[in-house]
């Protein structure tokens, strides 16, 4: 019996790590510009589609090539996200105090989805993993589940180091506290915000590529990933990468445990229940922080 729980734990954490990665990519943009980029889901799917495209054109890559392709996918998505960030923030150059980003990011998401539908049709793309399944507790787990866990830890460490140990990272963190003061202090705010968009692209691009064999790559599948990433973001606490790292797997494991013990119809309900409970008890999220504001 314990093997079943162990397998659920491993797979739940693996899938939850994907949500954690999306939540972290939300965070870096949110910290720098206050924007929640709803196009992240489709950018994540695009990362996965790059894995499909490579296999379709060049065949199954060797391990060395596959490892080299991760940064390639990450950089391509980072460039796309930087361009998207530039377009999203164009209207904000007239006034920071507006919500046009809400429409812009959703519009980009819809446009990407429509392009994907036109280019590859309604069928979901399916990618075979180049790795053999890994034996765990007498059963097997597809390697991408474990790689997603590793990637989430990798990006968590990188982001923590970058945001707390480098001048550029500290400048981005400062924008979260007070962008006006940051600008007054001479920070190149727009440049930092675009950099944050780029970093978020590196995260979702690499996440999509690595987890391609275990995710659904279709023109309409991004919504589910954005939603789960957003749930992980809110539960963990907006702007907290530690929160994202813990909340993502929490959502993944809770959904799988609910399915195992109660039934598949409770899979989505449980993560929403956790979300509502957290919002009632601790609206700022598990690791979120509240700040005093003069009114």
């Amino acid at each position, binding site marked *: 019996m314990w093997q*079943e729980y162990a*397998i*659920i734990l491993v*797979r739940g954490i693996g*899938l939850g790590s994907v949500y954690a990665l999306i939540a972290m990519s939300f965070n870096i943009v949110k910290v720098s510009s206050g924007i929640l980029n709803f196009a992240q889901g489709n950018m994540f799917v695009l990362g996965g589609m790059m894995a499909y495209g490579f296999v379709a054109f060049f065949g199954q890559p060797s391990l060395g090539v596959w490892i080299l392709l991760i940064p390639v996918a990450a950089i391509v998505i980072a460039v796309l996200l930087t361009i998207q960030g530039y377009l999203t923030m164009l209207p904000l150059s007239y006034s920071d105090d507006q919500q046009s980003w809400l429409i812009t990011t959703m519009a980009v998401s819809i446009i990407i989805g429509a392009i994907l*539908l036109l280019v590859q*049709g*309604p*069928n*979901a793309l*399916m*990618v*075979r993993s180049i790795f053999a*399944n890994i034996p765990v507790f*007498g*059963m*097997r*787990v*597809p390697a991408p589940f474990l790689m997603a866990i590793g990637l989430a830890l990798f990006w968590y460490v990188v982001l923590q180091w970058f945001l707390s140990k480098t001048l550029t990272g500290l400048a981005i963190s400062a924008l979260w506290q007070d962008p006006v003061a940051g600008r007054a202090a001479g920070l190149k705010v727009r440049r930092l915000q675009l950099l944050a968009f780029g970093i978020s692209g590196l995260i979702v691009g690499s996440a999509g590529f690595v987890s391609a*064999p*275990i*995710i*659904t790559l*279709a*023109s*309409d*599948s991004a919504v589910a990933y954005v939603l789960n990433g957003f749930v992980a973001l809110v539960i963990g606490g907006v702007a907290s990468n530690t929160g994202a790292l813990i909340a993502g797997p929490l959502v993944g494991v809770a959904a*799988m*445990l609910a*399915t*195992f*013990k109660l*039934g*598949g*119809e409770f*899979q*989505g309900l449980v993560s929403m229940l956790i979300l509502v409970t957290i919002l009632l008890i601790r609206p700022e999220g598990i690791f979120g922080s509240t700040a005093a504001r003069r009114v």
Partner: protein
Amino acid sequence: MRGYHRKNRALLHRAALMSAVAASAFAFAGPLSAQSKEPIKLGILTAFTGSDAISGRNGAIGVKMAVDEINKAGGILGRQLVIVQGDDQSDPTAAVNEARRLATQEKVELLFGPQSSQRTLAVLPVLNETKIAQIATSGSLDLTPQKGPYMFTVQSNAADQGYHMAHYVTDTLKAKTVGILTDNGAQALSGVAYIKKELEAGGAKVTGVQEFPFRSEDKTAQLLSLKSGNPEALIIWANTPEDLGVLLNNLSDIGWDDVPLAGPNATVMQASGAAKIADKALFEKVAGVAYRGWTYCPGDDVVNSPYVKFKERLKAANPDSYKDLLPAIVGYSYDGIMILKAAVEATGGTDPEKIRVWIENNADKVPTVSGPMKASAESHFLAGKEVMTPIVNPLNTNEQGLFMRADCK
């Protein structure tokens, strides 16, 4: 003089009356003859976008193929068929809006679609109100003649598919304990009660029931839950190739790939897509339910099968995209239009009431490629229990692409 004038006026009145009658006769005759030459507007209301666009694309190709053949042969009652498309976006709300547009603005006389139960149920009030004869491809048991008097469906319903799945498990596999795993679509969920009933009638016990959302990444939790009941066989209802492929991989991952599986019609149609991510060996224990027209037993005259001939025509009409098509969906959509055509010809028009009565009594006389179809006043499911049959290993087709029936001697 006065008498002359009176007589003259009477003559004038008579002449005016005759002119008016003649003029109105001309006026009537004009539109009537023009009307008889007017094309028949056939609406296609299906998913060109969204999660169900695979069905929509294939369904639309089947309809267009039927329309091309009908128009080349002179149309219906001398009238050409013209297609008017509506995209329901795989969404019931959008389906209702498009149904209203097709019915009231485009004024279609016949309709094909929608291709899922949720959307078909959603549009029925609109089509009942506007009285349009309709061929859908949906399998929910809620689609009764009372709810949709002018709606017929070429999709086998959940109960009939469930009947074959359950009897394959109890009669062929002789399993005494069975687990059930379905997606969370209306068709699959509505079939569970019937599957349970048939399993119990066959002497089998249901050890567990589980469901999963469409296109979910992992079904391990559901499978582990079912495995704990230790069933001898599984009934699985997955409607997309991704779900079927993931399910088979998950079974293999947890070391349970020796359990025999019985799936619905979708298993047969989606197996080749699922094989892109699941090893072919995993399909050896998979059975599905197919239209009789798609099947064979060794010794059958397969070369002259209407379905085989149809696939050859489909390939000739779509040489570049044929490999990406699902001939099964294309085929039964084509059949639906051919049944509508026969009904319009036989009743002399597009009166939905007459079409309804004709199809209820005569659908079995229409040659179809998927297998003999039949309806009645009690059921508008054209692909009933007799049309369907269990098949084994949906990847193991013969040279003509036909599936081997489970009851072959």
